[in-house]
């Protein structure tokens, strides 16, 4: 298998190429995904290779994109629909919450809806309003939806392939701040990273640090600031369904946990993780679980954006606080 050093854009692009090659039912649709190759160039080259019936520049309508993708999925295609920016995914919630996520259950398994919605998300790129938000919480809250966020090029490819092959609707959020942030070795050809499983980025005994997406990288940076604490960093990879096992086992071992997310604090996934820790590891805890999160405010425009986003120092402070409680 050939291995190349790729950034996340290239890794996702490669996954799309390979999956479209492998399965003629996979189609890509969205705003500017064809001729333009996507505003982040994630779908570059697909139109030339697979033609305009499988790589579709749609009219400007998010509900239209996702609603028609549902019909395609039910019929037997595997649509991979792009929502250009996370802040425009709100318009898809109706179709996802009212239909995509329920079709299997509503029809008692007679129909199902195997589709992927891809969208960049998150801050740190100095963008316009609605272009810097972390919105996964909305979709995690929809029963029947899966929600996936990679934090590296390797995982991005492997998770996207799994998402495309998954029989249920998956919202696949791409941390746009990491699109070109770094490269790593990504094999060509088939491999998958399973949905529903987190992974340990570091092993440790003192504190469990839980994060995903762009914030997983911030956590890695934070580790350099707390060299005297042994931290087990878990990258959840899939936010729904949540990997209880990896969280529980780690917290039972360390007795201390910090959760880091970019989403606003209230009802962010951190809240659910704490509830599950209470249910499954409460008696092992040696300190209250701490959250480092975005605030309960709209993401500020660029001039104040950095104050909103959790950074390595805030994370390191939290680790120290929990470790020395």
């Amino acid at each position, binding site marked *: 298998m050939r291995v190349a050093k790729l950034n996340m854009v290239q890794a996702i692009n490669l996954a799309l190429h390979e999956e479209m090659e492998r399965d003629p039912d996979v189609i890509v649709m969205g*705003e*500017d995904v064809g*001729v*333009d*190759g996507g*505003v982040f160039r994630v779908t570059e080259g697909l139109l030339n290779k697979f033609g305009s019936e499988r790589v579709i*520049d749609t*009219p*400007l*309508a*998010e*509900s*239209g994109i996702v609603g028609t993708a549902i019909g395609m999925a039910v019929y037997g295609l595997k649509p991979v629909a792009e929502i250009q920016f996370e*802040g*425009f995914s*709100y*318009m898809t919630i109706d179709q996802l919450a009212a239909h995509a996520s329920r079709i299997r259950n509503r029809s008692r398994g007679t129909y199902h809806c195997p589709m992927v919605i891809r969208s960049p998300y998150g801050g740190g790129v*100095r*963008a*316009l*309003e*609605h*272009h810097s938000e972390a919105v996964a919480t909305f979709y995690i809250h929809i029963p029947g939806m899966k929600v996936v966020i990679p934090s590296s090029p390797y995982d991005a490819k492997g998770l996207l392939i799994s998402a495309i092959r998954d029989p249920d609707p998956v919202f696949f959020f791409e941390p746009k701040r990491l699109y070109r942030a770094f490269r790593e070795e990504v094999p060509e050809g088939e491999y998958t990273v399973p949905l529903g499983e987190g992974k340990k980025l570091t092993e440790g005994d003192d504190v469990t640090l839980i994060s995903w997406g762009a914030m997983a990288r911030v956590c890695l940076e934070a580790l350099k600031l707390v060299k005297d604490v042994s931290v087990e960093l878990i990258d959840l990879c899939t936010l729904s369904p949540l990997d209880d096992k990896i969280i529980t086992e780690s917290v039972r071992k360390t007795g201390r946990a910090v959760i880091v997310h970019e989403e606003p*604090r*209230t009802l962010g996934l951190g809240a659910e993780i704490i509830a599950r820790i209470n249910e499954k590891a409460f008696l092992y805890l040696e300190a209250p679980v701490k959250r480092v999160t975005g*605030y*309960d*405010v*709209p993401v*500020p*425009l*660029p*001039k*104040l*954006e950095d*104050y*909103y986003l959790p950074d390595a*120092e*805030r994370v390191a*402070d939290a680790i120290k606080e929990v470790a020395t409680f």
Partner: protein
Amino acid sequence: MPRKKILELSVDWLSILDPEGNVDESLEPDLDKGTLEKIYRTMVLTRLFDDKALKLQRQGRMYTFGASLGQEATTVGSAFALNPDDWFFPAFREQGAQIARGIPIKLLYIYWMGSEDAYIGMPLRNFTIAIPVSTQILHAVGAAWAAKIKKEKIASIVYFGDGATSEGDFHEGMNFAGVFKTPTVFICQNNQYAISLPRERQTASKTLAQKALAYGFEGIQVDGNDALAVYSATKAALEKARSGGGPTLIECFTYRLGAHTTSDDPTKYRQMVEVEEWKKKDPIKRFQLYLAKKGIWSQDYEDKLIKELTAEIEKAVEEAEAYKPGVENIFKYVYAEMPSNLKEQMDELLAYISKKTEG
């Protein structure tokens, strides 16, 4: 029981000023010299504003920005038809209309330099920029509807692009406006592209104007590079709206001469020859020729104007760059009264900042 035609609908095209600045006198609006000069001045200022913004962005002094190069007649011509007490709902490419509405350009720069504080002290009835395409259309319909309910002779105007006509919000807004006969003027800036998607791929309709007919009101297509045509059509639509005649859709047929935004590379999806063709129809050049024929414009006039406007822009940029928003503003405006969780979070952040600056 024959089968017969029960409906025939049509859409007019309006143009008053040709690219050489020749005017159709039968259609020429009655504007005094001062107003003509103001329209010209505002179009030139808009272009200089955009040029400067693009330069600042390249130098890393400003963030993503969508210029309106080539669309100045559409934004400025239409906004000049408004009364100050009409309500104005922009999308994100309406700096021409914002400047025409009297919004200080310093505030526009503050916004595009990345601060919501631009709205502090902005003249009223000029609503916030709407980044999500088409969403503002419903707000404009609602505001006009409110004016109608309150029996006030006030209209609303809303701007959006050709791409916006594909969104559900556009259709819902048009339908509500038709059903409730709201005093709304819909200005569609058809600049032929929605990022990379050409107008022909956005809709199978021959015109965008005709979409109004389906909702039971008038749609007209005007030469969007002709400030007089845009002004006249908007003026008539606003008067109709204020006097109970209901909404109008005005499709301004124009062209985006520049990139979609500073993050866009238009060579991926369009040919330079097309851009060159449209440059010949430049809205500012055409107005300039018209003013020259009227004995208003001369090279001296131009030099003086550019000098004056450039100084105005430099001053605005300097003030905008000097502006530093306070961190508390992240929390202060979310609710009328700050809830306890926000207060805690604000204190947490302020403590973190002071620890950082001390340490």
